[in-house]
Each structure stands twice: as structure tokens, then as C-alpha cells.
């Protein structure tokens, strides 16, 4: 059974079609990359998968559960790391994570143990009782990751997880993704960083203006684009082939 099945998904905001008839599947135990330029519809697609937004049409199933029919069951199986650092910043990290744990109905002792272990691993245990108003973006990102893993979900979805992280934290995140998958979890993440996608993802999907442009393993995507690197394939598929000219135009404008 697929871990995630997306069928003919469409979503409109007023007259803007953010997602157009999108279909793809994600297998259990794989790292799946969602690629696309800004405004491609990646975040909208993710928000529909986790039940934050209703689609106009189409179906999403997580491990056989329909998001439309059983949203709570789906949310119990997903850990989500959002792109924007949506947190109650006037709480301490411990208070926030305890809230998340309690909303997942975890036993208090397990919540306490998990928080301690995860934050120690992420080098954040010293800040655990400080309000998050003073946290850096990287620290907030680590708290969000901890909250996504707290209930030991089957599927972890990360929206731009590497933005704002320093290189050491990013390395920990990359390592963690590998280990999660080795432990049987499924990870989906969206990113602009093609090197990371190339290194981590078994399969990927490139979308642009809400439409699927290419999908499959990296080799398959390169073959579909007729290019030999992911960067070139991405540029070609998204219609940006005059990169050098554009950079020159910007420099001209500065003069």
C-alpha cells in the first residue's frame, strides 16, 4: 500500500489556480522531494495533504485513510514541520511541546522523556525553559521538528526544512532524515536546495504553477528533461533558460 496517494488534486484561491489536477504517490520508507519555484503550489499541496486546507477536487489518502473522510486519523499519522515558524512564542519550548504531546494524547511521562531526548540531540536542552520569543529561526525550526516527531508518526512532511538552519543543524537534519527512513518512516520535503534533494531523495516531483512537470527517480527526471544535471533539468522544465541574461539585466539596472 502507498504511504501517500494524491489523485487529481485541484485547489483555487479566487481566480488563481494554485494546484491543477495533481496526482502522485509516495511509497513507505522513501524520501520524496517536492520541487518547484516560488509560488509553484508546493505549500498548498502540503497543506491539503495534512488537512489544513480543503481541496476543490481530488482525493488524498495517507496509509489508506482519506484526509477528507478521516482527517483526525490522518493527522495522528503525520508529523508536520511548517515553512513559517508557527509557534506560540510566549510559551517556553517545554510548555509548547507538552501542549503538542497532550493534543496527541501521549502519556505525561512519555512526553517528558521524548522532549528531553529530542532536545538534547538537537542541542537545545539548555533553552527548554526559556520563552521562544528570543529564539533564532534555527532554534524554532528545531522545536517544530521535535513537535513533529514527538508522537512517532509514520509520515513526516517538512516544508522547506533547511531554510534558516546553520550548516551544522542542516547536517543534523539531513542525517536525521536518513535515519528516520532507515527506521521505516516516510519523509516528504519541499525544498529549493537542489543539492540536498539530489543527495537525499529517492524520488521527486517537480511542479510549476500548480502542474506536474516531471516525476520519478532523479535519473527518470533527468531523462524526461533531456539534461544531465538536476539544476539544468529544473531550469529547463520551469522555463527559465536565460539565467545569465537575467543576472546581467539586474547588474545593468544597478548602474
Amino acid at each position, binding site marked *: 500500500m502507498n504511504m501517500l496517494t494524491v489523485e487529481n488534486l485541484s485547489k483555487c484561491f479566487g481566480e488563481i489556480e494554485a494546484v491543477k489536477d495533481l496526482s502522485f504517490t509516495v511509497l513507505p520508507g522513501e524520501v520524496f522531494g517536492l520541487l518547484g519555484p516560488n509560488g509553484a503550489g508546493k505549500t498548498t499541496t502540503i497543506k491539503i495533504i495534512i488537512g489544513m486546507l480543503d481541496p476543490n477536487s481530488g482525493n488524498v489518502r495517507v496509509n489508506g485513510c482519506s484526509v477528507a473522510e*478521516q482527517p483526525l486519523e490522518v493527522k495522528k499519522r503525520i508529523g508536520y514541520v511548517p515553512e513559517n515558524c*508557527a509557534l506560540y512564542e510566549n510559551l517556553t519550548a517545554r510548555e509548547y511541546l507538552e501542549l503538542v504531546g497532550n493534543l*496527541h494524547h501521549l502519556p505525561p511521562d512519555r512526553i517528558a522523556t521524548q522532549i528531553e531526548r529530542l532536545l538534547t540531540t538537537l542541542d537545545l536542552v539548555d533553552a527548554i525553559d526559556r520563552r521562544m520569543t528570543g529564539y533564532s529561526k534555527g532554534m524554532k525550526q528545531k522545536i517544530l521538528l521535535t513537535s513533529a516527531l514527538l508522537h512517532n508518526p509514520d509520515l513526516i512532511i517538512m516544508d522547506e526544512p533547511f531554510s534558516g538552519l546553520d550548516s551544522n543543524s542542516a547536517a543534523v537534519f539531513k542525517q536525521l532524515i536518513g535515519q528516520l527512513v532507515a527506521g521505516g518512516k516516510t519523509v516528504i520535503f519541499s525544498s529549493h536546495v537542489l543539492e540536498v534533494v539530489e543527495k537525499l531523495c529517492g524520488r521527486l516531483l517537480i511542479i510549476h504553477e500548480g502542474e506536474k512537470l516531471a516525476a520519478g527517480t532523479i535519473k527518470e527526471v533527468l531523462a524526461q528533461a533531456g539534461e544531465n544535471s538536476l539544476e539544468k533539468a529544473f531550469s529547463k522544465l520551469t522555463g527559465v533558460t536565460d539565467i545569465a541574461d537575467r543576472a546581467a539585466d539586474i547588474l545593468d539596472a544597478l548602474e
Partner: protein
Amino acid sequence: MPAEHTKQKVDFHQLKHLLIVAIKLDMRSGSQQFGGKGSGKFPPILYLVLFQFMISIGLALGMYFMPARLVSTILVVTVAMTFTALNIMVEFGSLIMSPDDHDIISPLPVNSRTFFYSKLINLFFYTTILTAALGIAPTIAVLIKTGNPMYALVFPTLLLAANTATSLAISSVYASLLKYVSRERVTSILSYVQMIMGGVVYTGYIVVPKVVSKSFIQVEDITDWWIFLLPPTWYASFIGLAGEIDSSHWIWSSLVGLAALGMLYMYCMTYLSIDYSASIARSLTASGKKEPKSVKLWQGRIGALGRFLNPEETAVFRLVWAQFKYDSRFKMTILAIVPMTVLYIFLAVVDDGGIADPFVSGIAEAGPHSFLVFFAMGIFPSMIQGGVLHSVSYQASWIFFATPANLTNVMLSTRRFIQLFFILPYLLALLVVFCWFFGNLLHSLMLLVVLYFLTMIQLSVTYLLFAGVPFSRPVKKGQNAASVFLSIIMPVCTIILPMVLLEAFVFTSPAAYSVALVLLLVMERLFSRFTQGRVAVRAASVRYLD
């Protein structure tokens, strides 16, 4: 509708933890309040409690001295319901449909009904604290007057019932509107409703005594059908439980109140709670809209002013106008000023005696409401400054910190804005009013000059207390109402009291006027210099809030 939705039950474990967090957040929202440097200890809700308590003292006097218990109770309940409605409307973004809550909670396995209950109970917690602050003094007053211990139980109960009905009614309207209209549209509609409600609050204490006839004040039972139609009557009728009404009309009236409460509760809990989360999601993801023509128009006018403004002022002026169009909170703050100003001038003008020429007859000849025109002038600065510091998009203020903008100029720009776009136009309007009443241009101008200096001193005091980078601080629950509270207190000290003294001792003597004018000029300059110095010091330490 999904099967899982229709069988939603409240998850009390989740509800308990959501409520604990909501209350913690309410009580921790004091930092960065007004001009503070970030160590504020008091949440804005406490300012509001203080404000409500001050009003409650006035209500207590009414309860004690008015002869008919029913009417005085109806008036107290009316005030309580109006303030509850106004507080919810002013703060509704954080009370009922907070985008932050949606972003954080909606990915978690919390059903819509539990989420809705948590918001509603948090709302009751908030409004019950305020109602308690409003009701405590009238309860004590009526206990002292009647010596009837039943009032200790009945009065808080009827206020709580009225407050609950109001909260449910407003929540029902909001949540119902959200089902069909975008959040932006709801906000826009409500900003106008709030403007009207603001007018009612600011002027009600003057208008009501004029409208309410002496015979109504004597009413001791629900004898007329129109009294029965007033929702506050339904809840005020509970005093029948204390044996204060002879006939049985109060029973029917109380039952109507309870029925209304029950119906609102059923409506909220059955129809609204099930797809509350989805309604918020829909409303938050409505598409953007085109830039309104009025912003372009005003930006054009600001452009024409450009040669008289420094670059920071030009930038801030444009920002303020854009915020007025797009930030509903700021829009509400500004719009609340309009009816208040118009009504205060109107009341002063139509009052018996109108506005007397202080250089001829002095204060004794003027109507009792003539001071309202001065009071309105004093409200502008602190009210606008209170609104101009906070924004839901406060993080966009990085631009002031990341560019070589002079932060002192940035912080003082709103002062110039208030002076140019609020104080000077209001003075011009007053010039017309004064000329009409005084029939003497020179006297009108002489009074205006005094008023101008007093208002500029008030503006400086406001900046000494509340200077900050425009729209750079996050919005906190209770904060709008808190700034209204301070806006009302300050002008009494900085405008009204000095005007009383000037009218009593200065205006009738040309020599005294001349000396007073020089003194005011010197004071205005000194305050202005001092304020600039203080703002410069604060600008050196102000930091971007991420």
C-alpha cells in the same frame, strides 16, 4: 460532510490543555506594551479591567441614587452588554478567529468542535473578568442600599447571563459570516459596526440622559411593550428573584432571556462548531484584492507634500495610509475617532448656551458640554499613537532597521502625521464653529492658538510615554481597549484641566492672556525639544522584534 465530522465530540483532555495555554498566553502578553522596552509586567487585559472598574463606580452611583431598581438595572446591563460587544469586536482577531491559532493547531489531531469550544471558553473567561470588573461596584451599591443579601447572588448572575448571551450572539454572527464571506470582508464590515459602537460608547453617557425621559426613570415594572423588547430587560428582570418586582411580568421576561441564551448556545454548539476550523481556513485563504483607488489617491497627495517632508516622513506617511486601508485594527482605531469627533462637536453646538466666547463671558455662560470639543482634541494623539505602534504584520518593520533610515525621524514621523492630518484639520473645523458662536474672528483665533499649544504639549507627552517605530510591535489581546482607556484619561489632565484654569483666570484679561500665551509657547517648545531628545535616546536602544 465527512462522517468523522458529524460525530465529533469535544475532547476534554485536549480542551483542558488548549485552555491552559490560552490563559497563559493572555497573561503573558504584556511585554512591549506601548512605550515599554520589552519588560512590561502587566498584560493589556489589566488596563481594561481597571477601565471597566472605573466605569463600574459611575454605575454604582446610578444604582444607589436612582429610585427605580428595574430601570437602574436595565441601564447597568445595557452598559455591560455594550462593553462586552465592543471588547469582542475590537479584539475579535485574537478572540474568535486567530490566524496564528489556525496555523499551529490545525495540523494537529484536534477536531473542530474542541477547537471552537476552546475559543469560546477562552472568550467567556476574558469577558467574564471584564464583566466582573464592571459589576462589582454596582452589586455592592445595591447591597448597601437595599440590605437584601439575595442581590449578592442575583446581580452577578444576571450580569453573567447578559454577558454570555452577548458573547454567544457576537460569536454566532462572526462564525456565520465566516461561512459565506472572506475574513477580509468580515473585518471590513465589522470595522464599520465597531465605528458605530464606538460612537455609542463615547457619547452614550451624554445622549442617554437626554433621550430617557424622567417618567422612564421612575418605571418599577415592565408595563410597556417596548421595555420588554429590549434584551437588557430580559436579564435585568432577574432582580425579580430578589423580590424587587411586585407583578409577575419579570418571570416572562426572564424566561425570554433564558430562551434566547439557550437558542444561541444550541446554534453555536451544533451549527457553528462542526466546521469552524474549515471556515477559518477558507476565510484565511481568500484571494488577494486589487489596491483600492483611495490608497493611490492619498499616496499621490502625500507625494505632493513630499517637498516639505524628510524621507522618513514620506515613507511613514505612505505606510500609515496603506495600513489604514489594509490593516483592519488600525482602520478601526482611526474610524472610531470620526463619529466621536462629530458627535462631540454636535453636542457642544446644540447644547443650551452652546460654546460661549471665553474672552467675553467666561465659562459660566457656556453650555455644560462645551468642553467636549476640547476633550475630543486631546483624544486624537494618544489614540492614534496607540494604534500606530502595533500591527499584525509587525515583522515587516525590519525595513526601518535594515536601511540607513534615521530611527529618531522614523519615530517622530507619526507625530508630524497626527499634527498635519488630524490636529490641523480639526482646528480648522473648530475655527468655523467658534466664529459662528463668538461672532469674532480674533477671539476664535486666540482660543485656537491656546488649544493648539495645549494639544501639541499633549502630543509631546504622548510621545514621551509611547514613542516607537510605527507598526513594529505585535498585536496583543486587550491592547486596543487599553489604548482607548489611556486616551480618555490623558486629555483630562493635559487639556481639560488647563482649559478650566485658563477660562477661570486668564481669558478675561488681555495681559494675563499674553503672559499665558508666552508661557504655553515656551512650554510647547521645551516639551518638543525634550521629547526629541528622549525619542533619540529610545531610538538608540530600540530593537527589531522578530
